[in-house]
């Protein structure tokens, strides 16, 4: 007994027990997630159960709070209702491109994956659809090219992940680098001006006083919502992300579905590429920089489980709008983007911490990724 080791050691990683799947299951059960889906009434903005709806109400509360902060800091501007309306539209317009990307991202994350290459896909699709050769086919040819390029890159991602068994993080990280490289190669690092007035008009056209870009965002969000909550595709997405083994043993083709999720994400990127090209009337390899982070952040604060299996389109949309509102808030107050980014980072952390307390999602994420051992 005299040779007892000193009691000063605090953390002995090797003595932590190995993670036992059954154990993890039990631990998961102990988190308060059990309240999910217990409420009987169905909310129209969420498929089933009140949990997502409740969280979305909280996000709307955050938006209202941001509005109040804006009104308090720039009461001179907010006293003018016309300005307030115009400002709201400009926020939505600001949110539109990332919003479309985020819809695709939401599907990928609910399906248990992640897509880090979305920004790069937008850039590649944007550059490809603005080459001189593509522009010669007119607006239709440009839109077609952007969408096909987006879906093709998604197909590569999905094939590598579903059939090549690459970890989504790695596969899409590689694609992030490669797609931007290809975009730079195609554009020869030049900014390609879009000469097509129809394409450029997408960003400058208003219908009934609302920008066309906002209609596109609304259409993509609506389509995404229906796809997730009302179709077999959406049901399979939840099943594949929630418990891939159970989905497989129920006869669902998990690999094919995983592949399709990345194709869907690529499709959204193709649409976003057209919108962004129209806004800038040009495309270049560096466009849509860090969109992947904006989209993932929006999905997370929108309440989608990073471990997959549960999430809402509306939550993600609110996440995007919250970020756009913050950007707007800083702009109208003449503050720097640096401070803005710090606040955004803080908001992401705060949102996830709240989620962790409420839904145990972060701990599930870490457990699934085996970053912690206890």
């Amino acid at each position, binding site marked *: 007994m005299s040779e007892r080791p000193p009691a000063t050691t605090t953390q002995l990683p090797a003595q932590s027990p190995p993670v036992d799947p*059954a154990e993890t299951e039990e631990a998961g059960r*102990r988190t308060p997630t059990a309240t999910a*889906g*217990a409420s009987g009434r169905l909310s129209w903005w969420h498929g*089933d159960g009140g949990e997502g709806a409740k969280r979305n109400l909280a996000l709307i509360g955050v938006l209202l709070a941001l509005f109040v902060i804006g009104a308090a800091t720039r009461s001179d501007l907010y006293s003018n209702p016309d300005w307030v309306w115009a400002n709201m539209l400009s926020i939505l317009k600001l949110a539109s491109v990332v919003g479309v990307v985020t819809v695709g991202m939401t599907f990928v994350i609910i399906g248990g994956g992640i897509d880090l290459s979305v920004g790069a896909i937008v850039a590649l699709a944007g550059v490809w659809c603005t080459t001189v050769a593509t522009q010669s086919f007119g607006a239709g040819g440009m839109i077609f090219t952007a969408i096909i390029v987006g879906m093709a890159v998604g197909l590569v991602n999905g094939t590598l992940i579903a059939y090549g068994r690459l970890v989504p993080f790695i596969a899409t990280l590689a694609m992030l680098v490669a797609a931007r490289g290809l975009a730079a190669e195609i554009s020869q690092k030049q900014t390609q001006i879009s000469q097509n007035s129809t394409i450029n008009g997408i960003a400058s056209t208003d219908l009934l006083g609302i920008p066309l870009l906002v209609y596109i965002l609304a259409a993509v969000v609506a389509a995404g919502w229906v796809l997730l909550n009302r179709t077999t595709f959406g049901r399979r997405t939840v*099943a594949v992300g929630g418990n891939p083994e159970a989905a*497989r043993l129920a*006869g669902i083709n998990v690999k094919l579905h995983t592949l399709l999720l990345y194709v869907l994400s690529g499709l959204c990127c193709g649409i976003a590429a057209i919108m962004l090209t129209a806004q800038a009337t040009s495309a270049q390899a560096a466009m849509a920089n860090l969109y992947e982070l904006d989209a993932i952040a929006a999905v997370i604060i929108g309440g989608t489980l990073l471990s997959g299996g549960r999430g809402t389109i509306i939550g993600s949309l609110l996440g995007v709008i919250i970020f756009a509102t913050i950007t707007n808030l800083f702009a109208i107050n003449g503050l720097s983007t640096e401070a803005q980014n710090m606040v955004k980072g803080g908001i992401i952390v705060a949102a996830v911490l709240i989620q962790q307390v409420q839904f145990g999602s972060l701990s599930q994420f870490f457990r699934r990724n085996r970053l912690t051992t206890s």
Partner: protein
Amino acid sequence: MTGHDAVSGTDVPPAEATAGDVVLRLTDVVKTFPGVRALDGVQLEVRAGEVHCLLGQNGAGKSTLIKVLAGVHRPDSGHVEWCGEPVGFANPQAAMRSGIATIYQELDLVEDLSVAENVFLGHEPRRLGFIRRGHMAGRTRQILGRLGHAEIPPGRMVRALPAAGKQVVSMARALSHEARLIIMDEPSAVLAHDEVGNLFRIIRELTAQGIAVIYISHRLEEIREIGDRVTVLKDGRTTAANLPARETPTSDLVSRMTGRTIEYVFPDRPAETVVGDELLQVDGLTRAGEFADVSLSVRAGEIVGIAGLVGSGRSEVLETIYGARTAGAGSVRMAGRTLRPGSVGAAVKAGMGMAPEERKSQALLLGEPIYRNVTLATFGRYARFGFTDASRERAEADRIAEDLEMRPRDVRRAVRTLSGGNQQKVVVGRWLLGDTKLLLLDEPTRGVDVGARAELYQVIRQLAAQGVGVLLVSSEVPEVLGLADRVLVMREGRVVRTAPAGELDENTVLDLVMAGSLMEGAPA
């Protein structure tokens, strides 16, 4: 290691093999998890210098018990006495410091550190904050020598060692902590046959030094060879304590393990089973290392049971038939048509359905509502143009919930709120929708309470009466005999007997199932 004021056992029959003092005594230890009573009154007494074997089926509570001893879990109630003093370990480090070391099945070594670094991980000998590498290597060499493995170089990376070598390193680590009790969780599972002898030699050397060993294994022959006393767990309870390891008849151990603590209430057999056409035909199915040359058939309306121990290949056979694993050789035919190997989709399309062994991890979306779990395999059929019909799904699920007497009846409740029995009904109910012709059931009543068990048996019988073929796997022999029309007995990946259930009794099947485990010379 002497001089502990341990209380000697009074209500325990004396075992001649062990003379040491009691170092560990557990009394009425209870540990519950939400919905599960993992330990439900465990008694255990371990003496210095003995090899105390823990015997029990999967889910009997062995793992939870180990974790209580190792300080991972704290018991809800009951007493743990260590060296005569009541203890409650706050964490694994505390248990380790008190002298209880655990060697898990999944060895918890750091692969990219050296042998010596692993042995002294977390308590490296230090001077002025620097690790005394030479001293550490020397002491490691000394400990390895004590284990009879001086040939393992302390500087070798653990990754480069074979499984047996890693196990020795784990034990060396336990000794470096001056462990007086070493818990080994199925240590032989990772070893080749000839390495087990070496493991036993090490264990004997440890016990000769007065160290107590808790040895967990499924293999009866090992318990006969190395064990001194046996404690049997069943459903979280001690069903027998301190049996002499060598003298207790196998039938006695098995019956205490598989247990008659559960009342089996089987529905009456139909006077005459109406058996239809041949449904499933499996020929020469083989998967290397798992099972070989398995042939069987199931007719419409027939219940075929597979009896076998864990590791006999029975679950693997079921999953291979279902396409969840790809067969190495052999064929699976449904109603005369050969199925594509390794394709669950093809099996489901052909009319198969499976309730897998691990409900939570293999069958359920725990956070999703009951109805979505019930319709997980069929929601596509109710959909129109790809649009799901949730109200129709709820109606169908309602019907299933009604038929199976699911509680609660509200199909919008999340599945995770249900008890084990009701979760199993969700899984079985999934295949009552659609046109399932053949149902594969893997341990359908594991973790299911007695009442729900009887209901599930009823459901299985009814399905067969409706012409559904059932292929049932269970480690509970009475369940197989009570339900099945025909029984296959599997051992070590092979079918060793096929017979009508009426021609077999429990002891015959147990003998067949455990034949390989019968020690030469052991009283049976």
